[in-house]
């Protein structure tokens, strides 16, 4: 006898299910009947279906659909064209070209999302350091023309702050721009002189 066979011999066959008493048969029949009664009662219930085109449920604020580029509370573009969203995107549907304006602020010269490829995973939103790129609950985002699914920056920009109402990157980040010098940002100390700061 080979070892495999011995292994199989040890396994006991599963005993077949049998009804032992009349009461067990009664229980089984009762359970069967209850099933039929339950489904029959459902016939007279109002269906719980939400009929879509007539009734549109407002989705939770954080549900993920159409992507927008938001502005900070002061009305400036939040996006600093850091390419993090583009790098995080699993389907590579985000592309942009960074630039710097006269004020020293970085911005995207052009910003393009190909929604034909987008899988609405929200990784771009997670990667974004400035809360610029955000997913909105606007799920009705279907078009017949595939090229019209490519959204340019002007299609993406909105004039509100989206889910993050207060954050303003340039007010916090220690980056010198035309508006603020180093040390003038919120909760930022004046820069120390590294030469006089020796122990």
């Amino acid at each position: 006898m080979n070892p495999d066979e011995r292994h199989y011999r040890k396994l006991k066959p599963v005993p077949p299910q049998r009804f032992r008493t009349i009461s067990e048969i009664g229980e089984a029949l009762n359970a069967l009947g209850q099933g039929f009664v339950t489904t029959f009662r459902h016939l007279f219930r109002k269906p719980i279906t939400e009929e879509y085109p007539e009734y549109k449920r407002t989705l939770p604020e954080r549900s993920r659909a159409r992507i927008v580029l938001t502005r900070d509370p002061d009305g400036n573009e939040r996006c600093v064209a850091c390419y993090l969203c583009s790098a995080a995107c699993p389907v590579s549907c985000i592309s942009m070209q960074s630039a710097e304006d006269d004020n020293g602020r970085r911005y995207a010269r052009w910003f393009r999302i190909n929604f034909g490829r987008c899988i609405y995973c929200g990784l771009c939103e997670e990667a974004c350091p400035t809360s610029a790129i955000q997913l909105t609950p606007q799920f009705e985002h279907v078009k017949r023309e595939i090229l019209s699914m490519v959204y340019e920056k002007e299609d993406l920009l909105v004039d509100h702050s989206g889910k993050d109402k207060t954050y303003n990157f340039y007010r916090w980040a220690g980056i010198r721009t035309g508006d603020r010098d180093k040390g003038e940002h919120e909760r930022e100390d004046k820069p120390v002189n590294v030469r006089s700061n020796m122990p």
Partner: protein
Amino acid sequence: MIAWIAGFAVLLVKIGLVLGVLLFLAAYLVWAERKLLGRLQIRYGPNRAGIFGLLQPIADAIKMMTKEDIVPEAADRTIFLLAPAVVAVTAMLMAAVVPFGPTITLWGRQVPMVVTDLNVGLLFVFAMSSLGVYGVALGGWASNSKFALLGGIRGAAQMISYELALGLSIVPVVMLAGSLSLVDIVDAQASYPFILVQPVAFVIFVVSAMAESKRIPFDLPEAENELGAGYHTEYSGMRFGMFFIGEYVHMQVLGALIAVFFLGGWRGPLLPGPLWLLIKIIVVALVMIWVRGTLPRLRYDQLMALGWKVLIPAALANIVITGAVVLL
């Protein structure tokens, strides 16, 4: 000669009538099933095409017919193309012997309200029912796909097992009626339907009939969550539609047979015969849909155990008891 032509014309009209009703009802049975199943599951079911989704069968038919008819490259072409027709045709042929009304007199001539009154009608029904298995088994085999093959084998095994119970359960009815002709069986129920004296046979017949028409809880040949779609996995377009039509026509024919054997066929008070038969068929079909909405699919061993260890012994015992009672 003229009499012969007239007889032939009447026959054609009857065939056209039965086929028309059968196919129309099959289409709307699909609609009724989807609608009722929806309500049983607190959904609406189809409600977009026409009011209450009443145009859904037409939309489905158009879709089926315009779809590509794919034959897999490795399939056995001839058998693959033939199998759906076997299922649909055998199901429709069974309807030929079902009487749908009392004999009427047309221009001084007796016209029986049945396509053909075979004196072995019951045997014919079972022969056709068994032939239907070939459609399933060959379709599964010719697809050259493991899931389709598994479905086909299951279909064959299941239908052979339940064919026995189906046949045996009807023997007491034949004993009581003293004939194999479906017309005579209906006539024998003039005073009372056989369900009153043969409740056991009725239950066995209904259960086996559901297994025969491959419906939940006996839909192992299809078993979409284990086998894709079972024996018709590889079918598309109208060939898939033929399997579908076959299943629903089978459902109606079994409803008609249940009516003929146990519920008094076309007999009933007030309403005309054909209407009574139609009502009985629809009621049986609705109950089948209700069962589908309630029961889960049986496991393969449970299916076989139910067929061989419960239904067949019960049917045999029923035959012996009925025989004893008839003899006394």
